[in-house]
């Protein structure tokens, strides 16, 4: 029994040391202690302050974009084969659920050329399924497997791009990941601890896709109506009207007519930097990929003295006159401030988002609320602890000290586990710790009440303690299992703060089984081993 006691004491001391190390490391000073404490115990967003955004990737944009590319290629191919047509266009589904319904309709292919048309489609466009709708009209839809692959790929690239854009905030910690129960949700979760300016983050992420550099056919006009009027109310083929936002102190908006087919898109953008020209005015320099550079060179070479526009999120950022052939790098000048140039560079550098974004949920906790919450949680914890300790000591006398020691050890193990698992402590998590104090004490109460009963029944002290621990064991297991089951479901279905609560409660309960039974028992045995025959137990 004595040997057992030493072994057990050693185990307990080892556990205590491991836990304390997990929480505060080997501090050499108070400052060290504080730093280690902050490093090890990670605070959740609701205690640190920070932003949590859930957004949905509008995958239908990517499918539509793919359809647009196919339409352009198809027109070129048909021309080469001398196949005539009257119209090729696509429909415009607006929601994620309708993404599968994107279809291209080809109208006016003469029946005589239908076999040439069909051969062309099956040769070069076998990702698409051709269905004739009449003798001259056809509809093309993407194969289901291809659509699925495209949607998945879009979400991955979107996550990548969002991550890149946020990276430029220089945050030490960020998290961007896909989430949602089924893959059909196309939801992305962005968590940014310590970010106190969610508006800026949303600006940086942007809400819609496309970055394009495209030819300007006409403009500027003072309003959309003026532009339409200048063209007799109908837009020329292949063009669209885009607004230019007022920049650099200019007043009012301007509208331009630009080509629908961009010369280069965000995908070809390699790098971009903010800089100052010889007059100390801000500009953004950019470089393109090889492919993009070739195309850009061909375009600019053929369009000297014409204009082109940089279109971002369907707003013109800059209009410039092509002065010479530009191969793979260029400058966007006339920007209003350093911040504008820097922001533009960031956009260009991080590529365009493959698809638009709709924000589903936003939670941002300011740092002052976080600080208050920590303070309040702490006060509640101390108050609860003092109350419980006081009652235990009064009601169970010296055995109450056992319970208090076990409780403190419980809390230490809990904090250490939080540290080792890198779990984030949230405000409900602190509530979970406080609740654990109350529930943990239950195990001790069960054991002590049993011991009291056995003593009353006339058993000797040692066997009363034995019986007490023994009989209470299965009840303790039962009660802990049910709460753990509860918490398991909370963990599965909850998120963020609620998860933090489930985690701390479960860890606390498991730690409690160890401390209430193993540690408490050891302390009792230690007390009993000192005296040969205990007459009475202070309980």
């Amino acid at each position, binding site marked *: 029994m004595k040997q057992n006691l030493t072994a057990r004491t050693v185990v307990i001391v080892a556990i205590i040391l491991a836990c304390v190390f997990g929480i505060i490391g080997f501090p050499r000073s108070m400052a060290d202690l504080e730093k280690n404490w902050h490093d090890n115990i990670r605070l959740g967003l*609701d205690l640190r*302050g920070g932003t949590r955004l859930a957004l949905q990737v509008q995958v239908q944009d990517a499918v539509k974009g793919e359809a647009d590319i196919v339409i352009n290629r198809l027109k070129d191919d048909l021309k080469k084969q001398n196949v005539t047509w009257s119209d090729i266009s696509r429909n415009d589904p607006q929601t994620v659920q309708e993404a599968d319904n994107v279809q291209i309709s080809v109208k006016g292919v003469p029946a005589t050329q239908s076999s040439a048309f069909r051969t062309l489609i099956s040769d070069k466009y076998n990702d698409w399924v051709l269905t004739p709708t009449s003798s001259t009209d056809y509809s093309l839809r993407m194969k289901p497997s291809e659509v699925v692959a495209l949607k998945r790929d879009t979400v991955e690239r979107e996550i990548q791009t969002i991550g890149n854009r946020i990276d430029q905030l220089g945050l030490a910690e960020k998290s961007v990941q896909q989430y949602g129960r089924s893959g059909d949700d196309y939801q992305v979760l962005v968590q940014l601890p310590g970010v*106190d*300016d969610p*508006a800026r983050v949303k600006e940086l992420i942007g809400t819609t896709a496309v970055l394009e550099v495209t030819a300007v056919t006409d403009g500027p006009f003072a309003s959309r109506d003026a532009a339409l009027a200048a063209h007799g109310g109908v837009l020329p083929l292949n063009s669209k009207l885009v607004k230019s936002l007022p920049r650099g102190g200019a007043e009012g908006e301007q509208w331009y007519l630009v080509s629908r087919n961009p010369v280069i898109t965000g995908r070809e953008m390699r790098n971009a930097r903010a800089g100052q020209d010889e007059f100390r005015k801000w500009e953004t320099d950019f470089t393109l990929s090889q492919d993009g550079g070739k195309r850009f060179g061909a375009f600019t070479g053929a369009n000297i003295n014409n204009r082109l526009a940089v279109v971002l999120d369907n707003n013109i950022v800059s209009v410039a006159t092509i002065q010479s052939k530009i191969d793979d790098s260029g400058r966007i000048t006339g920007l209003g401030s350093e911040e504008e140039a820097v922001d533009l560079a960031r956009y260009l550098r991080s590529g365009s988002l493959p698809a638009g974004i709709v*924000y*589903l*949920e*936003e*939670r*941002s906790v*300011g*740092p*002052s*609320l976080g*600080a*208050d*919450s920590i*303070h*309040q*949680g702490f006060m*509640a914890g101390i108050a*609860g602890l003092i*109350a*419980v300790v006081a*009652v*235990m000591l009064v*009601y169970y006398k010296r055995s109450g000290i056992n319970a208090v020691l076990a409780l403190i050890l419980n809390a230490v193990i809990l904090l250490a586990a939080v540290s080792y698992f890198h779990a984030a402590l949230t*405000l*409900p998590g602190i*509530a979970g710790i*406080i*609740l654990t104090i*109350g529930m943990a*004490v*239950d195990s001790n*109460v*069960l054991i002590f*009440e049993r011991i*009291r*009963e056995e003593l009353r029944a006339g058993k000797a002290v040692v066997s009363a303690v034995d019986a007490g621990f*023994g009989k209470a064991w299965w*009840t303790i297991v*039962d*009660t802990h299992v*049910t*709460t753990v*089951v*509860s*918490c*398991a*479901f*909370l963990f*599965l*279905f*909850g*998120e963020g703060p*609620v998860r933090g*609560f489930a985690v701390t*409660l479960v860890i606390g309960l498991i730690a409690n089984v160890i401390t209430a039974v193993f540690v408490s028992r050891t302390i009792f045995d230690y007390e009993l081993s000192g005296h040969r025959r205990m007459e009475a137990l202070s309980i």
Partner: protein
Amino acid sequence: MELFKSTNFDFLRWKWPFIGASVVLSVAGLMSIVLHGGLKYGIDFKGGALMTVKFAYPPPIDKIRAAMGQKIKGDVSVTSFTDPASVNEVSIGTELQEEKLLNVNRQTMADVLTATFGQPQSGKLEFNNASQQQLVDRLRDPLARAGVALSDQQLQTLVSNILNFRNTPPRSGLITDFNQLSGVPGVNSAIINTLKQECYLAPFNIRNVEMVGPKVGAELRTKAVLATLYALAGMLVYIAFRFEWIYGLGAVIACFHDTIITIGLFSIFNKEIDMTVIAALLTLVGYSMNDTIVIFDRIRENLKFMRREPLEVVMNRAVNQTLSRTIMTSGLTFLTVIALFIFGGPVLHSFSFALVCGIIVGTYSSVFVASPIVLFWHNYADTRKKRTRSAPAVAPARAEAVRKSPTRAVK
């Protein structure tokens, strides 16, 4: 000190009055829910945009509501916090809308506040709602011009210290005068003057913004219901496995009863239900199970020794024996939960209220709901058996109960 040495109350004699009380309380709760037109959902389940703003003086609620109403479509609610820990705080909420509109409204709320209470035309940066990066960018050049030489790293640290001072209690995000900053490490009068030049102090600080779109709101509602149902089912299975199935059923009905009464109390006291409240409900379901199991365990143990006695006597005995433990544990857990309720602050308010109600109701249901159900069933089963065969029908019914109990209960 011992409060309950050898009590011998006949608890189960009072089962009818207590079941009556339960029914009355449940019905009151349900009626309150009906009268209020449903449960009061928090933003998690209701959706919409919610902004918590702290003011430097008692906030002019009507003025805020009018200003918001002009720019935001739909209902705007402006309420002040009742919790004593939050002074001069209001909660501004818009109703549920489609996500894109919700986003626009959320931004509009911030803009309206700035327009109404701030000085947007002054060209200065608003200090109380500024972020680290905004302050650093704004102050860099002016400080250099004022002759304060700081490396970028030093500037970051200085701003960080200032913001830390602003955010910690008792300022809690709001300062009313730049001179308050004179105590911050690294701040001298030149810096304070620069601040006064470049920034102004709005009388409000946005503490918290939440925006939940209809899609997420629906998801959270589903998750809450599923979590509760699964948890109850899981526990039913576990208890049916460890005891007889009727014990499992009794325990689950007791927990269900706790949940209904707690939700009813929420409705009567007009408290909001959000995801953390669901967490509290699940916790007290677990906790109520604890209590019930302890009593059932004792009943099972006593059945072994008290074969001759009727089930009601055995149950009473078990409850009396565990009374001390039940009161102690409930009392202690209640103490910690009351500490949470009083000190925990407004964010946890609904959560701790749920726990406070739940612990009281849960303890009481273990004795007066769970055990009577088992008792009723066994009596019912006994009477049926008495009709089908003569002779000791009491023994077989309880022999079943005994068979189920594993011998390892006694070590």
